[in-house]
């Protein structure tokens, strides 16, 4: 381990001089189905947190056809600068043309860090680009830090989330990372922020456009399955025992605004819930304000997908269940007893509070709060 740590220390002046030429924290702004992806905005939060430590600027790279209309949104969410690569041949994603276009810009501008969302197309692009730029790429990271040597520490769950690894690329630039959606929360947009934009015209030859995109077929995502955007998530595990019993969780979710039902891998494999709402290592990473973990054990592969939730409420009949180790509040008990009681109690408290407010308004003289 100490030998490996030594490995991260760069001392020769030639390498240090070369590394110092690279400046700027970049994010890839991915456009999909006519809009910026959520994670593209979340990345800006991560980028800003690094930029604050290293004193660098944050820039986004926009690629496609007629994409300059997204510049304002990127600045509102934290970009200081936006590079716009527009070309009819970049109308929709293809691994060869996109790689070459972004590689040309990257070689010219030399950023020190380049972040991508861990969406399918973006991580595909990042992989091929890392190959072309002969640099490292850390996959599926959930957190970024800067160490005392100014190197980017890219933190990722390994072995199905059983371990957290720190990935370093001490001698290569840019330091490239894909970040799981939901790892960072996007900032409150500030549309008064202005950033500069710069147009870049890539030199694309026939050889860079060998792939022909024949069709892009898109089905809109059902909002109830869009668990990455939910404020409240009610998540169920094998303790629910059947597909029908998830109705109970839907009733609980129905009490909150912007709430969805999600579940563990075991539940999705059973077909009790669609796989699009699976939380965890091989599912989605979520960070709602409130996460109910009902009848699920809290396997590490599940925990890595929800550990960024603000408040975790665990309901499980087994007092030893792992989920109680990460919860904010927990109830040891039978979910088929607890959840109906919980639904009733929330309703009751809300009615009481409403009644109280009404009595107060009726019974108090005007002017008094």
């Amino acid at each position, binding site marked *: 381990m100490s030998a490996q740590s030594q490995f991260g220390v760069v001392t020769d002046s030639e390498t240090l001089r070369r590394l110092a030429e690279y400046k700027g924290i970049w994010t890839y702004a991915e456009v999909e189905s006519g809009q910026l992806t959520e994670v593209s905005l979340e990345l800006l939060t991560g980028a800003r947190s690094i930029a604050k430590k290293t004193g660098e600027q944050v820039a986004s790279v926009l690629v496609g056809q007629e994409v300059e209309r997204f510049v304002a949104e990127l600045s509102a969410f934290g970009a200081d600068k936006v590079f716009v690569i527009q070309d009819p041949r970049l109308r929709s994603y293809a691994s060869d043309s996109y790689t070459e276009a972004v590689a040309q810009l990257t070689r010219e501008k030399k950023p020190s860090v380049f972040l991508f969302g861990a969406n399918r197309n973006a991580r595909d692009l990042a992989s091929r680009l890392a*190959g072309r730029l002969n640099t490292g790429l850390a996959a599926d990271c959930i957190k970024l830090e800067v160490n005392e040597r100014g190197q980017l520490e890219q933190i990722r769950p390994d072995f199905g989330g059983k371990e957290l690894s720190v990935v370093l690329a001490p001698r290569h630039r840019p330091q490239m990372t894909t970040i799981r959606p939901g790892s960072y929360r996007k900032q409150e947009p500030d549309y008064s922020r202005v950033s500069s934009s710069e147009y870049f015209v890539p030199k694309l030859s026939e050889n860079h456009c*060998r792939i022909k995109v024949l069709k892009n077929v898109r089905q809109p995502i059902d909002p109830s399955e869009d668990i990455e955007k939910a404020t409240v998530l009610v998540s169920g595990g094998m303790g629910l025992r059947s597909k029908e019993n998830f109705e109970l969780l839907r009733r609980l979710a129905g009490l909150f605004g912007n709430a969805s039902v999600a579940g563990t891998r075991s539940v999705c494999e059973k077909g009790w819930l669609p796989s699009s709402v699976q939380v965890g290592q091989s599912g989605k990473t979520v960070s709602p304000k409130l996460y109910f973990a009902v009848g699920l054990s809290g396997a590490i592969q599940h925990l890595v997908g929800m550990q960024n939730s603000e408040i975790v409420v665990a309901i499980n009949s087994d007092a030893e269940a792992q989920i109680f180790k990460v919860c904010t509040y927990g109830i040891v008990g039978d979910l088929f007893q607890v959840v109906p009681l919980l639904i009733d109690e929330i309703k009751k408290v809300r009615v009481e509070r409403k009644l109280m407010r009404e009595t107060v308004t009726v019974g108090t003289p005007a002017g008094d709060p």
Partner: protein
Amino acid sequence: MVSGASVGLNILLAVKQVPDVSELRLDPVTHSLLREGVPSVLNPYDRYALEAGLRLKEIHGGRLTVVSMGPPQARKALQESLALGADEAVLLTDRAFAAADTWATAYTLSVFAKTLPFNMVLTGLKAIDGETSQVGAELAEFLDIPHASYVRKIDLREDMQGVTIERQLENGYDVWELPLPCLLMVAKEFGQPRLATLQGYIRAKRQKIRILTAHDLEALGANSANFGLKGSPTFIPKVSPPPAKPPGTIWSGDPKDSVRKLVDALSREGFV
């Protein structure tokens, strides 16, 4: 790199031997990963790539070569591939290859690939130990051929000069046309992979696995500075168990009572 049309399809398929992740356990005291004695298996995602390769071969004829970079035990993954129907297996094994990241892995595989007359390269979507999904695209880059990831359907043109594929995305799919040679990373949506038969295993036992060391690859023109940990742009200076959170408030006993306390707490947090 391109075979003559008469040769038919020449597929190179990269497979990895991985620890069976479901068998991994944490040390109860140190919370570090216990690696010893964990059984190794053929990477489950590579079975979909094998399935794709075997079906293409059944339709169009040709040859399927499997290659793996790894410790001597990786023979097992290759043997399994032979049992499933691969024609030839090659193991790249040397201490010098150890601790390679995806870049160095792809580089090493590419040196061998360049010695073959392939017109299609297949990989799995990801390996369950690292789960990076990067090696396929990086390998294609080193071979300077186009690639597609998340491939769920493959239609090879009759003249074997191009292929039409479907790529499974989060919210739909793309249809692409690529010229051959190309690299395809096969997704599990491709279809249920077959199981090896007893005859397959018996045949595989008799087949020889070709072994290539760092020295052999150097003789083929490889730059040994690109192998293993030394050649890897990234490395992992430290691993740790996921952080423990401060303990939460947990109620047991009368469920009515517990629920009341929970709703109180949620009210204070502004949710009720």
